[in-house]
């Protein structure tokens, strides 16, 4: 399979490395007009020269790893040209961008379209999914998710926080992963309320989002997405009938989110071994994240077999984009300024 990567930033580089190691991938091109000369020289013929047309007749699959303002255009073009597109999150700046992608997909029969929601493939999340339900921790009572970072010195300069380019703030950029996880566990969610704030960075997009959600069966969920968590945090708390799970930390390149782990607590009342409110817990520590490989592997397998992918689907992307659309559309959502 010959793959073309649009955009060689943080995500483009990750995808390039994963594709290079994939046995089905024969050739990779990179298209990035803003690539610095040193990277261009290092990558050699892998990089398409600026102003050179894309050799679509040779391209089997496209990876869109660009800033949000060109995501929809490139996805639509990729779908029309080769029918196989892997698109980084978010799927466009807004609902309109997403709808354009969805419409293009509907016009291409047997297409393969996957969105990059790799967090659902992280080992702590997969383990949590396996441990709940019948015979395990039972039905979910509630979920709370916190995902945040500290921004950093380049935060204000990043295209991610330029509303013209990104379409939104931390909720769209990072919170979308946590929304995808809430949907993974609860299915479709509707927005009960939300508070957005641009408390610190003053970029004109939210640097904090507090979103209260409800599943179709009434299960409550809550998300705090933040760019002012000075200690990088990933924490997903799932309360179930027979116990609880807390996934925290993320295996990442920098390790800044802490050791990835899953706490498993089983409900014990005072008639059992432990004191009420202090049940025995087990903690699983994980030391390998193969979410990138699994995600790309599934895309390539689906593309090769001409079938829809099992995760990162258009429907899953639609669910999170609907939530984000509805949060931004709330009548009182106007961002509280610092």
């Amino acid at each position, binding site marked *: 399979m010959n793959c073309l990567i649009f955009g060689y930033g943080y995500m483009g580089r990750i995808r390039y490395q994963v594709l290079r190691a994939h046995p089905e991938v024969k050739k990779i091109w990179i298209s990035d007009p803003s690539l610095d000369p040193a990277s261009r020289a290092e990558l050699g013929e892998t990089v398409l020269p600026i102003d050179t047309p894309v050799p679509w007749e040779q391209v089997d699959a496209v990876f869109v790893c660009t800033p949000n303002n060109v995501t929809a255009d490139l996805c639509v073009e990729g779908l029309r040209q080769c029918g196989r597109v892997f698109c980084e999150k978010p799927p466009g700046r807004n609902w309109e961008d997403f709808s354009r992608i969805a419409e293009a997909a509907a016009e291409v029969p047997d297409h393969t379209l996957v969105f990059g929601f790799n967090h659902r493939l992280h080992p702590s999340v997969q383990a949590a999914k*396996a441990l709940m339900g019948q015979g*395990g921790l039972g039905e979910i009572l509630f979920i709370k998710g916190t995902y945040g970072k500290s921004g950093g010195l380049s935060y204000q300069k990043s295209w991610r926080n330029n509303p013209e380019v990104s379409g939104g703030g931390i909720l769209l950029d990072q919170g979308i992963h946590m929304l995808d996880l809430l949907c993974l566990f609860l299915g479709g969610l509707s927005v009960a309320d939300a508070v957005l704030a641009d408390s610190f960075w003053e970029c004109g997009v939210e640097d904090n989002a507090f979103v209260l959600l409800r599943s179709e069966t009434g299960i409550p969920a809550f998300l705090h997405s933040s760019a002012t968590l000075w200690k990088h945090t990933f924490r997903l708390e799932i309360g179930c009938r027979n116990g609880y799970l807390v996934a925290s930390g993320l295996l990442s390149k920098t390790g800044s989110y802490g050791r990835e782990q899953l706490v*498993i607590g089983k409900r014990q009342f005072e008639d059992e071994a432990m004191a009420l409110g202090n049940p*025995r817990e*087990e*903690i*699983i*520590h*994980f*030391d390998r994240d193969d979410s990138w490989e699994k995600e790309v592997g599934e895309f390539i397998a689906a593309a090769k077999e001409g079938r829809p992918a099992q995760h990162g689907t258009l429907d899953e992307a639609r669910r999170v984009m609907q939530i984000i659309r509805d949060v931004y559309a709330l009548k009182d959502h106007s961002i509280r300024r610092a």
Partner: protein
Amino acid sequence: MRSFQTQDSFSLSSVKPLDGLLPYRDHCLEATRRALQGRKRVRTACPVCGERLAPAGNVGELPYVRCPQDGSLFLAELPDREAWSRLLAEVRQFRNSSASFHAQITQSRADHVYGPKLEWIQDTLRLQELAHPTLLEVGSSSDDFSRLLRESGLFLQIQSIGESEIGQGTEQAQVAVLLESLDRTDDPAGLLKRVSDRLAPGGLLFVTALLSSGFDFSVLGTRNLYLYPPDRANCFSRDGLSKLLEQSGFILQEVSTPGVLDLQVVRAHAQRDAALPLSVFEKTLVSSDLETQRAFQEFLQQRGLSSFARLVAKKGDGTA
């Protein structure tokens, strides 16, 4: 790969009290001495890496040897295979009799030893999305645990078999359990080979063991009264045990040391023997407050440094 940490909290006296253990240990040592009166096999090479084994000291006059590479401990001399099988059977019978200390703390052991092990197996089966598999229980040391397994309803079918009989069957299982069997087998690699032969491709192997690399064994060495044959004819280090499984064609899924008794074991030895040579640090640690001891034990668990290990491995496609 993953590792587990637990917040289990129970006392040494509730599961393997040192005072209660000593008569049982004496029985085991005496039975081993008798078994060694016949033909002997001398272990000179590490069953994992092949390195020449070095003397490690005596346990009840029986010499132990140590792998210089990874620190695993082994009983230096073994009786012939048949005598070893008879010895294991005799000791097992004694362990499950009313004469052993185990009989006096049955419920406590069920709560703190067997219950958590069953829960571990149950959770792992869920993590591996394996529903109602067939089980091969190899060399069970406890009738109580075998009963718990049967009553759990987790398995479609359970076959319990002794370590020495495993080569006789051919029927394959999806899961095999070796609870401390590798500690007492006279041929660890051979046992794993036979278990592998009886596991379906991709099948899961559950192993528990005591580790020489764990805290109490590291501090006490061969003075550790929990080291005795035949139950602990082998006391692998964490690295040694992991390598042994990998060399046998298994892919490690979990390597955990969720032990809760390391500090309690050292303290029990220090209380029993005032002359026990401990460093100032070790003395301070064993006499520290409960909070410090808990934090230290938690650290041992988190970093793979406790002496109780549990491992889950998957049979690879190319398993020998």
